[in-house]
């Protein structure tokens, strides 16, 4: 199983300018209060194993996260079911703000530094493993049209479908036609499936991955990006981390949790499991300064003032799959 280590200069501020992020979070807080009342939510157990026991739980934006005892998966419970979530995404003022305002202002840098590199990463595997000239691909649970646009440039001949998009297509200003949307696929038809943080935002990640396994052709590829609870950020900052944004960040599986999920959906070989995220050092230091018991990490990242140490620390995290951002390539047997 391969792993990647990336040196990149992406800064959080570039993709989430603080004033816009603050406005988004404020709107999201209001939306959650209005649109996700307690009565609309349902209690769940660990979405990977069904384990009931939890290590601890904490609240974010009036919603509750739990940490599963055995694998350390962090999940929202109670949580909205898929139909409630669909309504939420389509009517949320926060999502509209994200799509119309935040996305427009940060689109270029997101395309350049996030979307295109991720599509090129998948392109490398697709070129190596798939020989079909006209590929059938599908993106599961997208919540914006960025990957769709990038993919159309990278694979002009391919059919690129969206499965259960979690955003209102009217908002997209006709960038996507209805023919690109599929609610389901017949079995063994897809060459490639993309789950860009889709497992994170799915009420039933196990179900989604099982569906992917059924619709992929033998030898087909599944590309996953996700946030991991076993990564540096959550392990060090805990519930203080800015990573917990409900309801979108519904599941943050650990490294072990993700492997267990894949094992439960039998029939996949894991070609790559990497955690190639790069720490945005000024932002991490800001958060460390507000967090107790992080002296050693403040020393490494701030007080030592040694760029090489910071670089090798980042490499160490990635080399050992201890980063927060995960990416995986699965191949259907």
């Amino acid at each position, binding site marked *: 199983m391969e792993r990647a280590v990336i040196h990149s*200069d992406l800064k959080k501020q570039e993709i989430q300018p603080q004033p816009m992020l603050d406005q988004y979070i404020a709107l999201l807080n209001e939306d959650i209060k209005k649109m996700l009342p307690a009565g609309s939510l349902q209690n769940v157990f660990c979405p990977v194993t069904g384990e009931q026991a939890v290590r601890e739980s904490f609240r974010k934006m009036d919603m509750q996260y739990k940490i599963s005892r055995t694998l350390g998966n962090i999940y929202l419970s109670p949580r909205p079911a898929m139909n409630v979530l669909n309504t939420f995404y389509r009517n949320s003022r926060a999502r509209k703000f994200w799509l119309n305002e935040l996305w427009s202002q940060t689109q270029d840098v997101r395309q350049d530094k996030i979307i295109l590199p991720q599509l090129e990463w998948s392109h*490398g595997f697709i070129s190596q493993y798939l020989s079909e000239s006209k590929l059938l691909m599908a993106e599961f649970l997208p919540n914006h049209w960025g990957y769709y646009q990038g993919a159309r440039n990278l694979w002009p001949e391919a059919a690129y479908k969206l499965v259960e998009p979690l955003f209102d297509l009217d908002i997209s200003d006709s960038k996507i036609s209805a023919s690109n949307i599929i609610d389901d696929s017949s079995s063994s038809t897809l060459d490639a499936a993309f789950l860009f943080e889709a497992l994170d935002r799915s009420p039933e990640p196990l179900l989604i991955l099982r569906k992917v396994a059924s619709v992929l052709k033998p030898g087909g590829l599944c590309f996953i990006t996700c946030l991991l609870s076993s990564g540096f950020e959550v392990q060090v900052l805990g519930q203080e981390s800015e990573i917990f944004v409900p309801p979108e960040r519904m599941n943050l599986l650990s490294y072990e949790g993700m492997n267990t999920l894949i094992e439960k959906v039998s029939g996949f070989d894991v070609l790559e499991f990497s955690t190639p995220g790069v720490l945005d050092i000024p932002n991490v230091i800001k958060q460390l300064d507000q967090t107790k018991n992080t002296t050693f990490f403040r020393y490494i990242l701030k007080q030592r003032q040694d760029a090489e140490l910071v670089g090798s620390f980042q490499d160490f995290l990635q080399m050992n799959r201890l980063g927060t951002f995960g990416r995986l390539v699965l191949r259907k047997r």
Partner: protein
Amino acid sequence: MIEQHPDLELTLVCERDPEKLDGEQSFQIVREPQAVIDSEADAVFICTPNHLIPELTVQCLTRGKHVFCEKPPGRTLNDIKRICDAESENHGIKLMFGFNHRYHPGVLRAKSIVDSGRMGKVLALRGLYGKSGGKNFEHSWRNDFAVSGGGILLDQGIHMIDLFNLFLGGFTSAKAFMSNSHWGFEVEDNAVAILQNDDNQLAILHSSATLWKHMFQLNIILEQGYLKLEGLLSKTGSYGRETLVIGRRQFEDEAEAVGNPSEETIYFDRDLSWEIEVNHFADCIINDKPVLESNSTDAYKAMDLVHRCYRDSGFPIYQKEVK
């Protein structure tokens, strides 16, 4: 690899010193190659010293046996020509060569990136491939010209030559220098080759038996970036961890150049090169497909380039024919 394949059965092994084979075996052991040629086997893997390769390959092909032939394909260009002639005369019999480096995970990924065209045209290649030169190295048949037909370039450098051909298609000009200054064999212990093709694509190879560490490095310089392959996964791990660095051209102003630019380094953990190679060979036999990779054309091109380098170098031993 043969035993792991569901459609292959290892029935016979030729080994002049059967005591080398530990324990009870499920296959018959013979001492003479003729017993293999006379056997009922459908396919033969030829993994002998170089001087035996052409005759055994030709005989097997003539007897209708599919052949997987380890590299190098003999000692001379005439050897591979003989093999190619035998292949042409025995239509339908499959012949594949053991250029397994093509199937190493780093090479496969690099090739897919190059072929995608996303980083533009390849401008140049730079390869370093070498051995540490171990305790018994000076007594190896590989350094006996009569047996091997060449030194480190033919023995190991031919893998890099094959990769150069894989990425650039071939070369029209070859300049080379050979040296035997350390080990003092008849054959070279170091070879440096500078190659160019009609598209003005360049390649530089250093093949060495005096690196004192097993090393493999291949740099691919493209119009829009670079790829750096380093290390090779192997059973012993002696070539180090296999990695591929992918870097993009990022700045137009040299004053902005930074020592550690944005790069992606992929660490590979699994080498399937032997398995892919054997599976491909078996697939060609079972499904009667033409051998399109690591075939006799590739072997001829690699051998031709090695011998053009030998001739150009003026190294004494290569100015006369092998007997």
